[in-house]
């Protein structure tokens, strides 16, 4: 009886049933998609973060460069006697040079700071890294009419004297033959060979070869990021020039989280990096993991006190430093998406309630009659609530189908979101080789929305909730009808 009556009533008032179901479907589809995208964006964010800062890093300690400070400026190429220049055998002069400097916008900390950080209570592990940029310049200059120029005439030293007439720019301007230059840069990170539970290596998996180990200290062994290795066509056993020195590739790693690249193009032992870059006893980042998440804030405060000149960032700070289209989508989802789905959900519930209540009012005589022939209030309330819950569930099923379809479509399209960790790019020095170092810290992550059983539960829960809400109001209305209404003469 219950189901027969319920089915007939929903079927008989198709228009009303469809409006209630559609409202519910729209709201639930929206909630599912917004929820899904927000989960997808969150995982993309943590992917971006972990590829930059490593997994399990709760706090990072850095030092922001001051404008004009040492090592913060742009790249300069100084050609000295040590550089290779071979021009005698042909009409062209070939030049190449490779320099290793602090990454733009960063400044160094004393390596002893690591010990200070490790001494802070609640710190589980800490590791120091040195982020560098290797810039190599290579090119050829057409034969110069005079032999004055650049063939190793003794302009030695690393004098940062751009435009002083000693470098190639003056040669090209004096009307020589066809010349070509290329500037190539990649990132080099000096890492601890022993402490890898935290820091950049913790977010990687080994593709081939091996990780750096303690015996690599001081050697010229390098581990490459797989993306970089692919573009440079390097495999284990190949050599790579860093800071003018030949390194042997001992391993290739890739990001353990999805498709993004790891934090750096290349990884070398910390002490090798320090001596090559002339930065003995210096590091740029200290990655810290805490014993427990609740300690993070107190550890941050303690480190800030111990190292007043350093910038101490928590994971939350880092998340807000993520920029690029990922953060745009993230903001869109968390602001517009949430409000929109809330408003639509509220509207759908309101529609369901209003239509159900007005439906009950139109059936006053019907419910009065049922009461007059002995139906209890409870049975009538159950009937009304049953109708609206089933109506809501139909809407919920449609909404879930539309929402899941939407998620599948997003996953098939897999829109690419770019992320840039703001800390690495917003350096004051803008005089470097056009954007090369900026590109290397930008990660493209394809948005993938996790399709979970939780989504179906959300849909079912909201559908039942909406149905119950409408049923409660409708049932309350029906329960207040007097059985004597049945005797009202026909209108």
């Amino acid at each position, binding site marked *: 009886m219950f189901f027969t009556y319920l089915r007939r009533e929903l079927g008989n008032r198709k228009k009303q049933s469809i409006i209630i179901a559609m409202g519910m479907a729209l709201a639930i589809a929206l909630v599912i998609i917004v929820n899904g995208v927000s989960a997808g964006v969150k995982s993309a964010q943590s992917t971006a973060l972990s590829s930059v800062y490593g997994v399990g890093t709760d706090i990072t300690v850095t030092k922001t460069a001051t404008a004009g400070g040492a090592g913060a400026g742009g790249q300069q190429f100084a050609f000295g006697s040590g550089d290779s220049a071979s021009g005698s055998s042909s009409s062209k002069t070939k030049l190449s040079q490779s320099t290793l400097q602090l990454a733009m916008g960063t400044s160094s900390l004393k390596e002893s700071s690591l010990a200070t950080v490790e001494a802070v209570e609640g710190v589980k592990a800490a590791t120091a890294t040195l982020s560098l940029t290797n810039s190599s310049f290579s090119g050829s200059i057409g034969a110069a009419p005079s032999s004055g120029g650049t063939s190793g005439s003794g302009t030695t030293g690393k004098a940062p004297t751009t435009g002083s007439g000693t470098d190639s720019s003056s040669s090209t301007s004096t009307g020589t033959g066809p010349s070509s230059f290329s500037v190539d840069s990649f990132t080099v990170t000096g890492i601890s060979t022993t402490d890898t539970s935290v820091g950049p290596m913790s977010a990687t998996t080994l593709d081939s070869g091996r990780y750096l180990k303690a015996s690599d200290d001081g050697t010229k062994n390098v581990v490459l990021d797989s993306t970089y290795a692919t573009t440079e066509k390097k495999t284990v056993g190949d050599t790579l020039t860093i800071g003018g020195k030949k390194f042997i590739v001992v391993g290739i790693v890739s990001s353990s989280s999805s498709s993004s690249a790891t934090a750096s193009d290349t990884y070398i032992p910390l002490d090798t990096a320090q001596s090559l870059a002339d930065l003995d006893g210096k590091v740029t980042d200290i990655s810290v993991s805490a014993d427990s998440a609740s300690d993070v804030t107190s550890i941050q405060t303690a480190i800030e006190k111990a190292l007043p000149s350093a910038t101490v960032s928590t994971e939350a700070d880092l998340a807000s430093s993520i920029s690029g289209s990922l953060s745009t989508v993230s903001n869109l989802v968390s602001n517009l998406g949430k409000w929109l789905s809330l408003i639509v959900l509220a509207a759908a519930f309101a529609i369901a309630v209003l239509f159900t209540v007005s439906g009950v009012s139109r059936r006053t005589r019907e419910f009065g009659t049922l009461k*007059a*022939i002995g*139906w209890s209030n409870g049975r009538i309330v159950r009937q009304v609530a049953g109708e609206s819950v089933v109506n809501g569930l139909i809407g919920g099923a449609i909404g879930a189908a539309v929402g899941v379809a939407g998620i599948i479509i997003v996953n098939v399209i897999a829109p690419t979101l770019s992320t840039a960790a703001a800390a690495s790019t917003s350096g004051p020095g803008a005089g470097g080789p056009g954007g090369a170092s900026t590109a290397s810290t930008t990660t493209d992550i394809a948005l993938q929305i996790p399709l979970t059983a939780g989504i179906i539960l959300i849909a079912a829960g909201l559908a039942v909730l909406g149905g119950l809400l409408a049923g409660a109001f409708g049932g309350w209305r029906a329960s207040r009808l007097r059985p004597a209404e049945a005797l009202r*003469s026909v209108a």
Partner: protein
Amino acid sequence: MTTTIPTPLATTTGGPDAAFTLTGVTKTYRQKKRTVEALRGVDLVIPRGQLVAVQGPTGGGKSTLLQMLGALDRPTSGSVKLGAQELATASDGALARARATEIGFVFQGFNLIPTLSAAENVETAFADSSLPRDARRTRVAAALESVGLAERAEHLPSELSGGQQQRVAIARALVKEPRVLLADEPTGALDEVTRDEIMTLLEGVWRERGLTLVIVTHDSAVARRAERRLYIKAGQVSER
């Protein structure tokens, strides 16, 4: 022995043997500022098995009286007894149970559920925790048979004539085998031929089943077929 209950109408006996015993029943409706006294101090005993016709001018209180008898509403003051059960002070649940088991109702407008078939409409008369499904179906079929509509069981109300709809409503009222059948102008919406058919049907039912039948009617032809005729005007009941 009924001596403990003082009955104002000395000519009739109240108590558990009566179908209804009404004592000093008043019903007042309050509408904003205006109050309407639909029943004023009604004393009435209806013995079991009686066929009673209730007549009177429009607005006289006929439907209100039927609501008191049918446990649809409580009086403002006074006592309404169905058999030995006091309805004036009973809870909503108790009133609903009384309606579900003891009382059958037939309305002027038939009041069938438009989305349910004839058989399903009859089936709505069973309370929640009643018979198993098969027994119910059997009784529904028997009830429809007894009003001559066995072939129309699967029809919707909209597919039936007025007289046929009222027969379905009578089957619905009878299927639970009530002790009392109350009808508020059951022929008011029907033409003369059909009216006679329905009255004959109701009389037949009354005679066969020995139930108490109270019919409110404007129609003197209908009223003449009753054992007892009551006249109610301005909320006061008199015998005819």
